[in-house]
């Protein structure tokens, strides 16, 4: 179970690679278009320290962005669940903002804030927070009548208790979307780095693209996929533990 994701990733990655080599050798493409296995091994020997450092940096930003987006979605979810004008306004505003593609907004963020941690973090969290927001708003606005009834009839249901009851009762839903949005966090980081950063694995891919060096791209993809699989495995393990702990 623990290694399922990593095994799945290896199967997927090497299937893709096999398909690529299949195309290369069946229609006789040159090593310039699709590099040979020897080229890929040579390139990886040359660049692995830089790429590993870059992927670790991107991973750290992805995790930070993920945490930030969870906090952001949780706050907006709580505010949006309020039955007031403010709540409705915030909910509508959050949906409207998300209607714009983040990739289109990203240049504005880079122009205003320059390169660095904050804009990358911001773009990462913007990309992965929407599914989280939808879930949080849904969960926090969905009553649990069989528990809340007592507090309602005795007029003792505070908003904090209401949120706690609903979050607890829908924890499986919340944990699933947190797990699902982790991949989006890494996607967001890479997009941000690809667009304008000067470090990270997304930046390395943009350089490889400008050099038309597919070997580098394939190595970067391997490292990205492998690191995401590890993050998801750790996340799923942590959540399973939390879930088991809360039920027994």
């Amino acid at each position, binding site marked *: 179970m623990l290694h399922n994701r990593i095994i799945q990733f290896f199967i997927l990655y090497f299937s893709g690679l096999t398909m690529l080599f299949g195309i290369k050798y069946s229609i006789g493409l040159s090593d310039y278009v699709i590099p040979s296995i020897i080229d890929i091994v040579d390139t990886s020997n040359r660049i692995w320290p830089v790429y590993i450092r870059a992927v670790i940096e991107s991973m750290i930003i992805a995790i930070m962005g993920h945490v930030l987006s969870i906090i952001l979605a949780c706050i907006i979810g709580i505010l949006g669940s309020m039955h007031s004008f403010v709540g409705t306004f915030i909910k509508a505003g959050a949906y409207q903002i998300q209607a714009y593609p983040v990739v289109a907004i990203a240049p504005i963020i880079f122009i205003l804030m320059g390169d660095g941690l904050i804009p990358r973090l911001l773009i990462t969290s913007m990309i992965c927070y929407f599914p989280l927001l939808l879930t949080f708003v849904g969960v926090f606005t969905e009553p649990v009548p*069989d*528990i809340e*009834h007592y507090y309602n*009839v*005795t007029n003792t249901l505070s908003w904090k208790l209401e949120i706690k009851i609903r979050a607890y*009762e829908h924890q499986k839903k919340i944990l699933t979307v947190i797990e699902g949005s982790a991949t989006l966090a890494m996607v967001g980081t890479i997009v941000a780095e690809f667009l304008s950063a000067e470090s990270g694995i997304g930046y390395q891919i943009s350089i490889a693209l400008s050099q038309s060096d597919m070997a580098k791209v394939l190595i970067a993809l391997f490292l990205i996929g492998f690191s995401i699989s590890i993050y998801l495995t750790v996340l799923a393990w942590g959540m399973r533990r939390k879930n088991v702990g809360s039920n027994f």
Partner: protein
Amino acid sequence: MYLQCKDISCSYNKQHQVFNHITFEIPVPGFHALFGESGVGKSTLAKIMSGLMIPDKGTIINQSGSSQIIYTTNQERFPGWQTIQMHYDSIFPKNTLDQWQHMMHIFGIDNCLHSKFHQLSLGQKNRVNLIRYLLQNHSALIMDESLANVDESMREKIILYIKTQFPEKIFIYISHHVREICKFCDQIVVLRSVGHSPQALQLTGQNLYNNTIDSEKLKENMLEIVHAT
């Protein structure tokens, strides 16, 4: 103190009529019953009486002042992260500790204190739920199948305890146990389907405070209720 339902009419989606000019009155505090066949609208009427639903027509008159009519059902749960003790500690003032611990003992559930709600049996769940309502400040408590899945002797023990400990309050007990209702309840409101006139019949039960029964009288009473439905 009395509680009156006056000319209550109610329908679902303005098409399917459930109540047609229902009127009855609970004139004194005590242990009363709302009885009727399944689906006749007992829970709906209870919700209307406690203000959880608004009828199309009619009024509920509660002459007990500011304290409210509370409705409880056997469908309720406690928050999943709390044990029974944690929950009671969070909802009751500290000076009621002896009272709720004594009630747990009387209700035969003192061994449930450190369990979570989902770990209890159905009967235990209903009893721990009932305790938290009994200790509220209310003028009337509507108990919708609150003692379901509790064995007969324990049910009788609990009903007698409620009758002796809270004589100043109104309890309206919704149950399908005809014998129990006849034995312990004072006023019995028999609710009938919408075609009957009147839709709510009011009968008088034995209103016992102990287990001494006059079998003949009880039998007559039970027949009266069964015929009324």
